[in-house]
């Protein structure tokens, strides 16, 4: 089935081929082919098998019925009481099928007639011994029909019938002959109203085995299949109704079952279902006739959901037509041909308008769903035309009505439209899910990369800060000391022991920097212990006795290397002052922890007290003031505070307070 990809290049495959690729198309075609094959095969098979005699000749006698009211009850009564004898001169030879067209002029009371038929050809049919004989009329339309076989009344299954209803009739010859006989006699009476006419098909006679097949097939196709199709429609409708209940916002799901119901009501005319008594018949008939229009309107509304275009004309025209038909059908006006004609015209217009619109939209929009719906509607219309012609006895009345079955393709194509939507939605959801997953993976990957970059940057930042700090420190301390010493040495103004002292100071300073990098672990006591370890000898050399006391101090969370160095310098400064100026004999260093009161000092403070018994100093002196300010600013940089009490001759007490938690910044 491939389109030829010519050697000259790729050919675009024909449209039908592309259409066939769609799964829905395949399903539809398959179903249609199966159905057609089934029907065709059964018909062919049936006709090939059966040795059935078809009578195409009969004799007819028309007898008018004197009636008072012109009702079917009178017809029935007349049929129930047949005349004893029919005048031979009344009989005419007629060809079957025999059709009496409607005669509009014959309205009124005197139009009831009974058509009598007898079939001389039946006598020519041999009837073998032991064989039953059945006689089958595929179609009788027009009114009640009775039959007498061998003089006896044959039972008729259907007690109810309607003027327009058609049915088949099976007449069974009574008894099984012991010996072979020649045929049998059959008398048929059909009551009808000449205004409406009637029709009768050919007569088929044969054994039950031969006829049974055709009888069953006809019954199935004519009576049972419409019921089955109605059942299918309503079941599927129920399913979609439940869908609608689950998702009220999708009105499409409701339109489908409603259209199905409308069509099912319309199909009732093909079944033997009817109102309980004839008073309701008019309303029943009105509903049946209106149903098809409601169905078309619902199909239109359904199609609207699949197209972006809305025809303004059709939007108001359709409801008007539908309401017109419904209103005109109501049995509240006197029956009138004119009204009837208008109604039929309006009905036809509704059907034509909707079909034409959908067909146009299907090809204009190119939407596959609409194409299928329009195709099935056209098919349905064709079936309708066929049925009308058959009903009007233009076509062989022995055929089948196709309209009841033609709803199935329409319904199927509407379901197909919805199913396409489902599949597309599920596909879209899966695609969306996949997209989302991919996006998520991308984003988390991005996030990871960002984290890595951030950490890297942080590390580099820390290293940078550390390096800057060290460099700054060395620049301030070692750098200036060494350069000034160098200058002094070159100028020859320093003695060797002075140079040694400067160099020793530099080594000490370097040691202090290294100490600040040692793993102190936020321990203030360890830090001060290290300071003491370094500077203790200097104090001893100055003849100062050091009294040392510490008690447990909790970790100072903020005490990192830079802060440690700062703290060391502060203490070094204080001790250097003592050694240089105080001329003290005793120094006491005391480290303790004070619990804080209140939220502001949560965690408490570490308190370092360095006191000496030296000379003290005057806080008002300029040099002292500068030194004090220096110490104060350095302490505050650490987030702590310093308090210095000194009086000349009364020693000095330095109290350094450091917060345990993060330092307060001022």
């Amino acid at each position, binding site marked *: 089935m491939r389109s030829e990809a010519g050697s000259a290049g790729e050919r675009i495959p024909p449209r039908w081929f592309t259409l066939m690729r769609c799964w829905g198309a395949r399903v539809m075609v398959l179903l249609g082919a199966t159905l057609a094959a089934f029907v065709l095969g059964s018909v062919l098979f049936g006709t090939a098998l059966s040795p059935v005699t078809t009578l195409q000749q009969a004799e007819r006698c028309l007898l008018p019925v004197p009636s008072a009211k012109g009702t079917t009850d009178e017809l029935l009564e007349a049929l129930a009481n047949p005349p004893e004898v029919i005048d031979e001169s009344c009989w005419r030879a007629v060809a079957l099928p025999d059709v009496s067209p409607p005669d509009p002029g014959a309205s009124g009371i005197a139009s009831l007639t009974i058509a009598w038929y007898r079939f001389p050809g039946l006598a020519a049919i041999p009837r073998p011994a032991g064989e039953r004989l059945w006689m089958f009329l595929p179609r009788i339309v027009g009114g009640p029909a009775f039959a007498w076989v061998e003089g006896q009344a044959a039972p008729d299954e259907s007690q109810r019938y309607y003027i327009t209803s058609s049915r088949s009739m099976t007449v069974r010859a009574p008894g099984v002959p012991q010996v072979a006989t020649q045929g049998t006699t059959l008398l048929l009476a059909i009551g009808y109203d000449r205004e409406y006419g009637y029709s009768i098909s050919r007569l088929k006679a044969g054994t039950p085995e031969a006829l049974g097949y055709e009888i069953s097939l006809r019954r199935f196709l004519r009576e049972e299949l419409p019921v089955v199709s109605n059942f299918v429609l309503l079941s599927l409708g129920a399913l979609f109704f439940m869908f609608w209940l689950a998702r009220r916002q999708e009105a499409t799901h409701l339109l489908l079952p409603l259209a199905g119901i409308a069509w099912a009501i319309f199909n009732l005319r093909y079944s033997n279902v009817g109102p309980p008594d004839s008073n309701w018949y008019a309303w029943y008939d009105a509903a049946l006739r209106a149903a098809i229009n409601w169905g078309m309107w619902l199909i239109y509304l359904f199609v609207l959901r699949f197209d972006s275009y809305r025809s303004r004309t059709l939007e108001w025209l359709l409801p008007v037509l539908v309401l017109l038909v419904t209103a005109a059908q109501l049995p509240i006006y006197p029956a009138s041909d004119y009204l009837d004609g208008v109604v039929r015209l309006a009905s036809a217009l509704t059907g034509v308008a909707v079909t034409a619109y959908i067909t146009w939209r299907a090809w204009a929009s190119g939407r596959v769903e609409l194409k299928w719906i329009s195709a099935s509607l056209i098919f349905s219309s064709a079936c309708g035309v066929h049925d009308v012609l058959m009903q009007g006895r233009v076509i062989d009345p022995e055929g089948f009505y196709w309209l009841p079955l033609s709803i199935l393709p329409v319904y199927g194509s509407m379901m197909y439209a919805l199913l396409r939507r489902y599949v597309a939605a599920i596909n879209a959801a899966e695609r969306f899910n996949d997209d989302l997953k991919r996006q998520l993976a991308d984003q988390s990957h991005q996030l990871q990369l960002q984290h890595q970059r951030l950490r890297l940057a942080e590390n580099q930042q820390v290293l940078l800060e550390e390096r800057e700090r060290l460099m700054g420190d060395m620049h301030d301390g070692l750098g200036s000391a060494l350069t000034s010493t160098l200058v002094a040495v070159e100028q020859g103004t320093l003695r060797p022991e002075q140079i040694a002292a400067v160099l*020793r100071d530099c080594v000490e300073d370097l040691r202090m920097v290294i*100490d600040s990098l040692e793993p102190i672990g936020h321990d203030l006591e*360890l830090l*001060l212990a290290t300071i003491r370890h370094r500077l203790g000898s200097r104090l001893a050399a100055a003849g100062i006795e050091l009294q*040392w006391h510490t008690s447990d101090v909790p970790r100072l969370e903020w005490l990192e290397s830079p802060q440690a160095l700062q703290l060391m310098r502060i203490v070094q400064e204080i001790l250097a002052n003592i050694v240089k100026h105080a001329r003290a004999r005793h120094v006491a260093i005391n480290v303790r922890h004070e619990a804080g009161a209140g939220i502001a000092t949560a965690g408490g403070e570490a308190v370092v007290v360095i006191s000496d018994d030296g000379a003290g100093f005057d806080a008002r002196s300029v040099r002292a003031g500068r030194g004090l300010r220096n110490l104060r600013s350095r302490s505050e940089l650490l987030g702590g505070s310093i308090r210095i009490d000194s009086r000349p001759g009364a020693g000095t007490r330095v109290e350094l307070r450091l917060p345990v938690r993060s330092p307060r910044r001022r």
Partner: protein
Amino acid sequence: MSEPGAKPCSVLIVEDDDNFRAAFAAAIERASELTLLGAAADLRGGRDLLRRQPDVLLVDLQLPDGNGTELIREATRDNPDCDVMVVTVFGDERHVLQSIEAGATGYLLKDLPAEELVREIHVLRAGGSPISPVIARQLLSRFAVAGHLRAEAATAASSDDALSPQEERVLTLTAKGYSYDEIAGLMQLSRHTVQTYVKRMYRKLHVNSKLDAVAEARRRRLIHEE
């Protein structure tokens, strides 16, 4: 100080800096209780001189032809009576502890004046060792870790490998900044006893690190054998 009439203590110096080596050699010469066994400027020279079995080894970690730690290990292994002191510029815990684990029992700051140098050697020979607060803190954590590991591995820890409560207190007080004298006063001990505690602890650390190394090697060998 040493007893009168005792054999003088022989000292070996391995130091690549000429100034320091010369200054130190001079200080040793001046001291009556010490004699200079030899002075080497590199690892190879140090190894040669080590065969003469000095009493005290002073070694610098940065030598031109290798790391002084090797020499410490060899000296400790071949000559258990030898006291090894590592010479360091800053006395930072990393170098000191590395040396102690290798077997050193003391450390010297490079810029010490000559008298202090000699005094430190005397103290070392007498059984004491120098220590700093940071090193004390490190020792505490090292022994604590070792103790935990031994407890987990359920090996029978001999009392020699773990710290005694006295020793632990010495370390804690050192880390708090107390001097030898103050610690001695607080613990009702002599200064000398406190210093011997420190030396004992250095030996224990060395033993521990050796044990750990052996255990590690054994484990590795086991894994190899598999």
